[in-house]
């Protein structure tokens, strides 16, 4: 049986608040945590079918051109080498998130340095790796391979363009205005678990254990790449050691392992090296941005301009959506937004941790700080007076809006001093000390999702979907939702995820997982409750379940009387998507110290206050926010992909040289969860969390650097060399 809900109207019934089990909203530890910390959670590369051969990708050493010849004989006689796979179906880029079709194939055409062109398969990994390095490849190079946005004429990404009112006029009439250029560097997802796949072919069906975020799309992408029917494929991704966008689309190793397993008729494992993960999956584009803000004498915005230049390979549809939240964050009558894309021959640009706001918000919120200083107004106040009543571009109402609460509660909890903000006044020894703040915003999305919920005769429950848990806590919150709806402790709920044989979920990405798949489970459970209510002689609305029984009545087991009730919950966003602008909001506050001599910045403490609808589990939610804040520290201070200016190859391609923040960079972090029910966001009143935690935080740090030492920087990350260059004498 199945139950379908297309949400066309806000849901203010808040049903989950009226259940009796009391397990939802509890700060429970992750139910998969023990398996993970004891090493018993099996990740994709750890599946070891008998007779498994090992494949290593061969990557291009030119930037652009054609592979004219692959001399297989150069390696076939090496010890252990089984085959060189150069099938035309090999993919040469990872699919973009939700692509639902194969990414670029034709491995003989090279579009970027480090692009996969073949796979060497051998008995052992070491043999395959050595042979991959020895494989002779003859290229015909195409010298026309621009690797930097400065070298090409960018094109406008027209969907993003907005022109309302007259910004130039607003700027010239403004009592106060700023016009600033910002730059941000490229970023890597930098997940711990490298991309890996183990493929097995039994002559009829191909089973692939792969580390992927969105099986519901990946299965179609894989089928399309292999030119096979989806029903001949099974994808399994039970545990994913971090994705951060890099595993949204099917990536090169999964297709290569599949082709090799079928060609060789034996299982094949392909694990990317750390360098390959960095060099041939996804980068976040670097950006150049221009912010123009015009304000009247009291600080009310009259003009708002945000332009950005990003880059990608020719032929890619994805453009870093830098302006995403700029469309609605602040009111201003005259608006001009524009996104330009430069086509260059560097590795694929795609979704990396909060695409868009992760780099757009730090620029916008940096500019707001400059404006606040010019006006002579408290930066918190400047944000508060510019919160729009409704979406300033589309005129739509907000589904719910907690920016003001976040700013106020955050300021209070942080102990924000709203007095006059003179920079460079507090010094402790070598260190300048200062504070800064910024708003947070991240658009909220939901997606169609299905999950099967089965209540077993013994009173336990099974939840099945192909949704993945990429380390965020999906297993846990689904058990909590089902437990709450059906009156069960979570140890009575078994959650089975990451198998394409299960009903299709939304995939894990864009922070939409919990709200989407949680709603599908909710819908399935609600249908089960209908059946239980009938059996108990009451209505669903009045049915109260807790501790495996009807409150004050029969046990579930007795009510089921040997039957099993199984419902496939099917949730669809519906028209409501077009009726509201939905976003998570928040505020960041930071206290930093900047070394007068060395320009090093250290964070003393940082606080984020966030409103993202219903908090399903405060512990996993808080962890998501802590992770987000950590990434924002990376954007502010340490993370930067460096590309060779001549051939465009990524040079810092490991975790020693690409600097994500380490523990010592993480000071006291505090998270304030601002209570909210968003009726139009999802039937469970929840919105996305994970990415929100990093959208804007970097500006709080940048603004604190200025407040501390007087160095106003317009380039992220703010490494010591840059801070020193901007430090007043």
């Amino acid at each position, binding site marked *: 049986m199945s139950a379908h809900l297309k949400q066309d109207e806000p849901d203010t019934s808040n049903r989950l608040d009226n259940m009796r089990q009391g397990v939802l909203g509890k700060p429970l530890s992750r139910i998969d945590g023990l398996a993970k910390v004891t090493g018993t959670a099996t990740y994709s590369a750890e599946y070891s079918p008998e007779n498994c051969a090992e494949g290593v990708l061969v990557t291009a*050493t030119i930037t652009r051109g054609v592979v004219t010849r692959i001399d297989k004989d150069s390696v076939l006689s090496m*010890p252990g080498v089984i085959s060189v796979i150069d099938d035309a179906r090999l993919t040469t880029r990872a699919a973009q998130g939700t692509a639902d079709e194969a990414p670029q194939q034709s491995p003989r055409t090279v579009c970027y340095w480090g692009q996969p062109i073949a796979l060497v398969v051998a008995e052992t990994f*070491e043999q395959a*790796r*050595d042979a991959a*390095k020895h494989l002779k490849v003859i290229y015909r190079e195409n010298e026309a391979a621009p690797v930097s946005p400065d070298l090409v004429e960018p094109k406008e990404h027209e969907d993003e363009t907005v022109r309302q009112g007259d910004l130039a006029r607003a700027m010239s009439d403004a009592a106060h205005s700023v016009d600033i250029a910002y730059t941000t560097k490229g970023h890597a997802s930098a997940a711990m678990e490298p991309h890996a796949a183990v493929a097995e072919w039994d002559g009829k069906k191909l089973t692939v254990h792969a580390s992927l975020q969105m099986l519901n799309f990946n299965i179609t992408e894989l089928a399309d790449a292999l030119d096979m029917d989806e029903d001949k494929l099974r994808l399994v991704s039970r545990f994913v050691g971090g994705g951060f966008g890099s595993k949204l689309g099917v990536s090169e190793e999964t297709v290569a392992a599949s082709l090799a397993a079928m060609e060789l008729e034996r299982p094949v494992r392909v694990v990317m*090296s750390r*360098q390959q993960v960095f060099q041939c999956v996804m980068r976040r584009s670097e950006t150049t941005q221009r912010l123009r803000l015009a304000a009247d004498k009291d600080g009310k915005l009259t003009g708002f301009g945000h332009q950005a230049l990003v880059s990608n390979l020719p032929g890619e549809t994805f453009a870093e959506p830098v302006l995403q939240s700029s469309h609605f964050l602040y009111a201003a009558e005259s608006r001009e937004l524009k996104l330009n894309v430069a086509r260059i021959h560097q590795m694929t640009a795609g979704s990396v941790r909060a695409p868009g706001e992760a780099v757009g918000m730090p620029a916008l919120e940096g500019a707001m700080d400059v404006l606040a200083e010019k006006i002579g107004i408290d930066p918190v106040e400047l944000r508060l007076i510019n919160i729009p009543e409704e979406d300033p571009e589309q005129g739509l109402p907000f589904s719910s809006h907690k920016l003001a609460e976040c700013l106020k509660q955050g300021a209070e909890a942080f102990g924000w001093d709203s007095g006059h903000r003179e920079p460079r006044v507090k010094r402790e020894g*070598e260190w300048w000390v200062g504070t800064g703040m910024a708003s947070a915003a991240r658009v909220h999305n939901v997606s169609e999702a299905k999950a099967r919920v089965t209540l077993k005769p013994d009173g336990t429950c099974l939840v099945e979907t192909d949704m993945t848990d990429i380390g965020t806590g999906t297993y846990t919150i689904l058990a909590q939702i089902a437990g709450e709806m059906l009156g069960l402790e979570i140890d009575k709920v078994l959650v089975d995820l990451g198998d394409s044989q299960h009903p299709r979920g939304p995939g894990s990405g864009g922070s939409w997982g919990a709200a989407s798949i949680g709603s599908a489970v909710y819908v399935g459970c609600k249908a089960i409750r209908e059946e239980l209510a009938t059996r108990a002689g009451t209505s669903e609305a009045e049915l109260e379940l807790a501790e495996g029984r009807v409150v004050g009545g029969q046990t579930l087991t007795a009510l089921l009387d040997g039957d099993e009730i199984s419902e496939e919950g099917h949730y669809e966003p519906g028209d409501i998507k077009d009726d509201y602008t939905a976003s998570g909001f928040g505020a960041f506050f930071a206290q930093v110290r900047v*070394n*007068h*001599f*060395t*320009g*090093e910045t*250290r964070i003393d403490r940082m606080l984020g206050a966030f409103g993202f609808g219903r908090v399903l589990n405060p512990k996993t939610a808080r962890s998501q926010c802590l992770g987000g804040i950590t990434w924002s520290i990376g954007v502010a*201070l*340490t993370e930067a992909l*460096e*590309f*060779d*200016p*001549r051939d465009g*190859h990524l*040079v*810092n391609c490991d975790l*020693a*040289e690409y*600097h994500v*923040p*380490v*523990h*010592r*960079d993480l000071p006291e972090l505090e998270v304030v969860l601002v209570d909210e029910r968003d009726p139009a966001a999802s039937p469970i009143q929840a919105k996305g969390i994970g990415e929100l935690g990093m959208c804007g935080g970097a500006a709080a740090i940048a603004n604190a650097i200025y407040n501390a030492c007087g160095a106003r920087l317009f380039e992220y990350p703010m*490494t*010591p*060399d840059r801070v*020193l*260059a901007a430090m007043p004498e």
Partner: protein
Amino acid sequence: MRPFQYNRARSLADASGIISDKGALAIAGGTNLLDLMKLQVEIPEQLADINHLGMAEIADTEDGGLRIGALATNTAAAVHPRVRSDYPVLARAILAGATQQLRNKATTGGNLCQRTRCFYFTNVDQPCNKREPGSGCGAIDGIAKLHAVLGTSDQCIATYPGDMAVAMSALGAVVHIAHEDGEERTVPVADFHCLPGDTPWRENVLEPGEIITAVSLPAKVAGTQIYRKVRERSSYAFALVSIAAIVEIKNGLFSRADLAFGGLAHKPWHDPRIADVLIGQVPSEKLFDEAADILLSGAQGFGENDFKIPLTRRTLHAVLAQAVEQAA
């Protein structure tokens, strides 16, 4: 990784014999060598595992110094009571390097011999004169933020990336080297590493078959000891610039100023002229500038790393000011 022959060395002579062959290398903690073998930057045919040769002892010497065996781990050296009390600059330098897990494996000898972190050196599909003589230098005109500003050549601008040796250089430590024939020679740490010149592949003075057996530190000297490492994140990052300093101030005048610098050159940089400028003088900003002028007179940046020159000047100011403050 290429297949290689693993040999567990039974004696120093045995190890030395194995590694006198071209294509043979000693392996200690393996934290640097194994990474480079995976990348096929190093492709030894033979490895001599020296981990079973003792040489892990840390012991007092007759002249009041301390001898640290080549196989003593970085952790063992950093926590040794005498290192902590008499050579804190060394303890701090070691602890400023890598991570706890790496330091638990890394050895004194291996740390001295660790290879550069130049991005082009570690990518075998890029030109590098150090890895492949004559292929060119990818870093010049490439990404060279971490690269050297002192003692470079038109062949190579790489840095020696380590911290431990910088402190040892300031302390006037000496490397003990054994040869196959049983002879031992000693070389000051300050002279152990080479400048790139026309032979960038040559990083130190070890001859084929030579093995480091220990590093010995002279008896404790008076003064304040400081290790300052400037880096892009607060831990687990190589130095942009680092300074090891042993500074003494008597009667308001500098009486000792042993300084060594990391992150600036293909070796820990030690310039005796700095002590000459400082000693006998009253500490002042102007004096610190004079010292910096001398240190940096021959410095040359390559665009991306130009910032190291002013950064070094400022960091030197900070370190000398700290020494003065601590002496007061």
